């Protein structure tokens, strides 16, 4: 805690004390803003390169300076200076405000994501529920944006986004329930601490599969990218966005990609635990990037599912498998099989 300055001579020490405080560093530098922007820019570059290698695209493979590093920067500059077109009769405050709300919602959950034993901004006791609560606001925001843009394709895409939430959300929760039962806590730091001896992917493997598939549906990635199906809906719910609005929406989407891969890492892949020759946050980011890779790869490989098939898979397969894993967890915990690993 830093005292407020009383005399002019105290102002400089006050500023130094604020800037070097743990709260400020975690907020602005490491788990906070700057780290987030760097990783998001890296992810855009990484996805471009990965898909170019999968699909043998010449352009993205060779364009943009050494290794294509300049391409995201060029994209950003181009999009900032492009004209923002607002459709006729569109709801202007909502059309301009919802993308900002999306970025806010994408960045907010990182306040409770622990990147290391002490690298967390807010050690919230209900962190997991907080993340689910914030991410479940996304489809509603998308529908509001789609409605505000006064165009048919965005509106259809926004409705599909809501349908998709009906399909994936319950299996996601139920599969996270097994992890909560194993760890005995909703606090993300305690969930990771419980995995020091064994990662939860081992006792809750079925849950991991369900959670991963639900994550891909939540991120609207192929094969579940129905809200932005290009052949049917032009570009889905962000068809009418252009220029800076488009860039802001993409920032939010990649933040969400990083967020969900971090969540998979925390719940199933042991968070920051790893051999001690690397610092904890490095292990965490490496694992999250590996998960992000497996989320990106299907985009270059698989075709798209139909809406009714997605919703049918969500309820008749994923939910049943997730519930089955809850019963398996009950059996494992009550027979004490996992006692050797401190669970």
């Amino acid at each position, binding site marked *: 805690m830093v005292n407020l300055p009383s005399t002019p001579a105290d102002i400089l020490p006050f500023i130094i004390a604020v800037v070097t405080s743990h709260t400020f560093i975690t907020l602005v530098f490491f788990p906070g803003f700057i780290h987030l922007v760097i990783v998001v820019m890296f992810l855009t570059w990484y996805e471009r390169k990965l898909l170019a290698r999968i699909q043998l695209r010449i352009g993205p493979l060779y364009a943009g300076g050494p290794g294509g590093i300049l391409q995201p920067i060029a994209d950003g500059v181009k999009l900032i200076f492009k004209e923002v077109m607002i459709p006729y009769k569109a709801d202007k405050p909502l059309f301009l405000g919802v993308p900002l709300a999306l970025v806010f919602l994408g960045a907010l959950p990182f306040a409770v994501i622990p990147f290391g034993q002490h690298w967390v901004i807010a050690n919230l006791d209900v962190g997991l529920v907080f993340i689910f609560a914030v991410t479940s606001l996304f489809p509603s925001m998308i529908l509001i944006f789609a409605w505000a843009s006064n165009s*048919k394709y965005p509106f259809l895409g926004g409705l599909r986004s809501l349908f998709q939430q009906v399909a994936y959300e*319950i299996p996601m*929760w139920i599969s996270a*329930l097994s992890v909560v039962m194993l760890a*005995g806590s909703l606090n993300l730091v305690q969930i990771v601490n419980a995995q020091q001896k064994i990662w939860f992917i081992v006792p809750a493997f079925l849950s991991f599969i369900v959670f991963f598939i639900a994550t891909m549906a939540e991120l609207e990635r192929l094969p579940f990218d129905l809200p932005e199906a290009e052949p049917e809906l032009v570009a889905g719910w962000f068809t009418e966005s252009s220029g800076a609005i488009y860039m802001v929406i993409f920032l939010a989407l990649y933040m969400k990609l990083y967020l969900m891969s971090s969540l998979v890492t925390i719940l199933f892949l042991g968070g920051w635990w790893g051999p001690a020759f690397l610092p904890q946050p490095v292990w965490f980011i490496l694992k999250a990037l590996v998960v992000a890779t497996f989320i990106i790869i299907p985009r270059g490989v698989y075709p798209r599912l139909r809406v009714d098939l997605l919703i049918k898979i969500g309820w008749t397969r994923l939910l049943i498998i997730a519930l089955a894993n809850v019963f398996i967890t*009950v059996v494992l915990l009550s027979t004490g099989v996992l006692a050797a690993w401190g669970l």
Partner: protein
Amino acid sequence: MPFESGQVPQGEARKRIVMQYYPYLLMFVVFDVVGMFLFAWGISFRSIAPSDSLLVLLFLFLLGAPLGYALKMALHRENW
């Protein structure tokens, strides 16, 4: 227009669109609440008596039959 080959769009954009998959939406409303209660149970699984956990499992088994029926009805196209 940047899409539709330059054709001018016709009609209202904010039309009424039929909410399909009605049984799934109903099931979502039910299981959303059940999911919340299950989290409350999952947190305290170690600290409560096994007989209480058995009650929750019984409740889940009882939910199984309606869930199966709802899934069966949801596969019928005429109910969408």
